Structures are given as structure tokens and as C-alpha cells.
């Protein structure tokens, strides 16, 4: 870009990569992957990061690689206890659903619904819905794969493995947006949220199963989804042990 005449300044998350690439202007930040501005819902902090980045444009020459001096504000982790609204240990119930895990997933989703609705109302936005599958159909769509079935693809612009991936991310977003709207949970760290999702929810358990099913698929893309893209590596590793 710079060669083509556009001045650039970029955030660096992985400093060794930036040292190799040597872009014209980079601001290394000690934040986690996925959060180049450091922390959500903290406009003052985000502004400081942005100003530090913009100021690199005033450097007389380069390449410039500066370090942002502040860590992201610590999440109030100790005070945060994420509790699921449903008792999942109870996997059998009186519903007509033959599969108790699917029944639990549906119950869990329903129980979170007031908080998800609250989140959407408060934030005036949601990141759910990328798959195009309605909230009421997401659980069944995803669970069909766990059963070894291949449901029809509701989209004609992407392949079935991609639709599945988007459905999984939609469900995860539904849970995270919902739980972070509960009282006292606004400051939960990503680690806490991920531990909760993968360790304590039925959805997390369903996705771990789903990844194993996909991994065994003869379809190359479906296999890649199962082995790489549905479950973070560290989570998959922890649960394999």
C-alpha cells in the first residue's frame, strides 16, 4: 500500500512477525488475539490506543515499531461467577425428544433467551444471524450433524461446511451476548467466558462432539472444520486429555 502511495499505520499483535515484515509504521500492543483495540466497552482506553497509532503517522521516517505502554484493563475476573441457568446434569426429561442431549441444548437456549433479548435491546445490535438460520432452528440444524445426518443447506451461496461453521458461531455468539448481559458479568474476561462456554454449557459439549464427527468426514472441507475451525486448538487439546 505504501508503495502504491498510501501512508499506512498498523496495530501489531505478534511482535516477532512485525519485526520480520518491517511495515512502515506499527504499534505493538500487549492485547490478546481478536482485540486490537484492547478492551470492549472502554472508549477512553480505545481512544488512547488509536491516538498512539495515529501519532505514528507524524514520525519523520521509518520503519517505526513502537510499543503501546499499557496493558488492557484487567477484567474483574474474581468477582465473576458465570452460572448456567439450567441444570445440565439432568439430561433426561419428560419431553418427547428422543435425544436427551438435544433436549438439553434446546432447554438451555430457551433459558438464556431473556438475557440474549436484553443484550440486543441494550447494545442495539447482535452479531448473531450470519448463517441466516433462525434462532429457533439453529439447534436442530447443528445437531443433525452430530447425529451423522446431512441436512439440506439453507444457503445457495456457500457450501454446507461453511453454513455449519456460521451456525456454530451464531450459537456461540448467542450464548456470549446473553451471558454478558447478566448482572455482574459485563467485565468477564474472554478466558472466563470461554471456560464457561466450553466447560459448563450443553452447547459447548455438543460442539466438541460435532467437531469429532466432522473430523471423521470424508469431505475435505468438513474434515478441516472438525479438525481446525469449530473448536479452538487449546480447548480441543484440553478436552482430549
Amino acid at each position, binding site marked *: 500500500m505504501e508503495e502504491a502511495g498510501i501512508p499506512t499505520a498498523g*496495530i501489531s499483535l505478534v511482535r516477532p512477525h512485525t519485526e520480520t515484515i518491517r511495515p512502515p509504521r506499527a504499534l505493538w500492543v500487549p492485547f490478546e488475539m481478536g482485540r486490537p483495540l484492547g478492551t470492549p466497552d472502554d472508549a477512553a482506553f480505545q481512544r488512547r490506543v488509536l491516538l498512539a497509532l495515529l501519532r505514528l503517522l507524524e514520525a519523520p521516517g521509518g520503519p517505526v515499531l513502537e510499543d503501546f505502554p499499557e496493558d488492557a484493563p484487567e477484567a474483574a475476573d474474581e468477582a465473576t461467577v458465570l452460572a448456567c441457568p439450567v441444570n445440565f446434569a439432568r439430561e433426561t426429561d419428560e419431553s418427547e425428544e428422543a435425544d436427551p442431549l438435544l433436549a438439553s441444548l434446546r432447554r438451555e437456549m430457551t433459558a438464556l433467551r431473556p438475557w440474549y433479548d436484553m443484550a440486543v435491546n441494550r447494545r442495539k445490535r447482535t452479531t448473531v444471524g450470519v448463517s441466516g438460520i433462525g434462532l429457533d432452528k439453529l439447534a436442530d440444524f447443528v445437531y443433525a450433524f452430530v447425529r451423522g445426518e446431512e441436512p439440506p443447506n439453507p444457503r445457495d451461496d456457500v457450501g454446507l461446511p461453511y453454513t455449519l461453521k456460521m451456525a456454530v458461531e451464531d450459537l456461540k455468539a448467542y450464548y456470549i451476548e446473553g451471558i454478558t448481559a447478566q448482572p455482574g458479568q459485563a467485565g468477564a474476561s474472554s478466558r472466563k467466558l470461554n471456560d464457561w462456554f466450553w466447560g459448563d454449557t450443553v452447547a459447548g459439549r455438543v460442539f466438541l462432539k460435532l467437531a469429532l464427527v466432522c473430523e471423521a468426514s470424508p469431505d475435505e472441507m468438513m474434515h478441516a472444520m472438525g479438525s481446525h*475451525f469449530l473448536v479452538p486448538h487449546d480447548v480441543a487439546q484440553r478436552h482430549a486429555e
Partner: protein
Amino acid sequence: MVRLESMSEPERKMLLGFPCLSFDTSPWVAGPPLNRRRVAIITTAGLHRRDDRPFQLDPNDSYRVIPGDVSAADLVMSHISAGFDRTGFQRDWNVVFPLDRLRELAAEGVIGGLADFHYSVNSARKSEFFEAPAREIAGLLKQDGVNAALLFPV
């Protein structure tokens, strides 16, 4: 917070093992003071408008255009990776795509203004596939009068 030294060994190895290009040249373009800069965002987070086509692993399909008047409710993510945090973006788009912050800085006159269009790519592709789209986007930014492109990875 999370730094390389606080990651688990396998996470760190995987991250540092990603192929990374190096360049022989160090291009540098000077520009006017900040208050005369027209700023565009380039994000690698696989963001796009809700009605836009999602990203797939297609080397010929490189970027999405995000209009400058986009609203937070209309911006979603279809990056394929499971290897970065999404909970931040799910709560506040500015942690990935700081358009509200830039709008504030433009309103205060700290920066000159904002581009008509911003750009998004999906970083889950080989680095060599980026050169052509980067040059194309640079041309588009020029037409847009942009003289500061801010790059935000995930």
C-alpha cells in the same frame, strides 16, 4: 493480559510458525498533519455487512467493502478461524473496528475526516494472495482521497 509469554506452548508455537513474508524495501510516504488526514480502516477480521456474502477460503475472493455510514448493527464477522477472541467484538465492535472512536476524533478535528469506504479481508489465507488485492485497494483509497490507512489485525 495475554502476551506471547503467557500463551501455552502449543498456541505460541502455532502462532510463530505461521509463514511470514519479509521485504527488501522499506517504502515510506509522508503526509500532512493529522488534522488534514482522511482516514480509512483496513481490517483482517473477516467483517462485512449482514447482507454481504460471507467469506470462504477462496483465494480469488479477497475483500469486502464497508461503507463509511455503516451501523454497528449491520456489521458481522464470518472469519473462518477459531483461533482468536470474538467475545470482545460481540460486546463492542470498536474493539476490532473502531469506527465510533474515529468518528469522534473526526468530529473533534483531531483527524481531518473519514473515507467513504473501508475494507475488510479474511486473514486466513496465504500472504502471497494479498499483494494484488492490496494494490487494488490502495488504488481505490487514492480515488477516495485517503491519506492514512489504519490496519487492524485480529
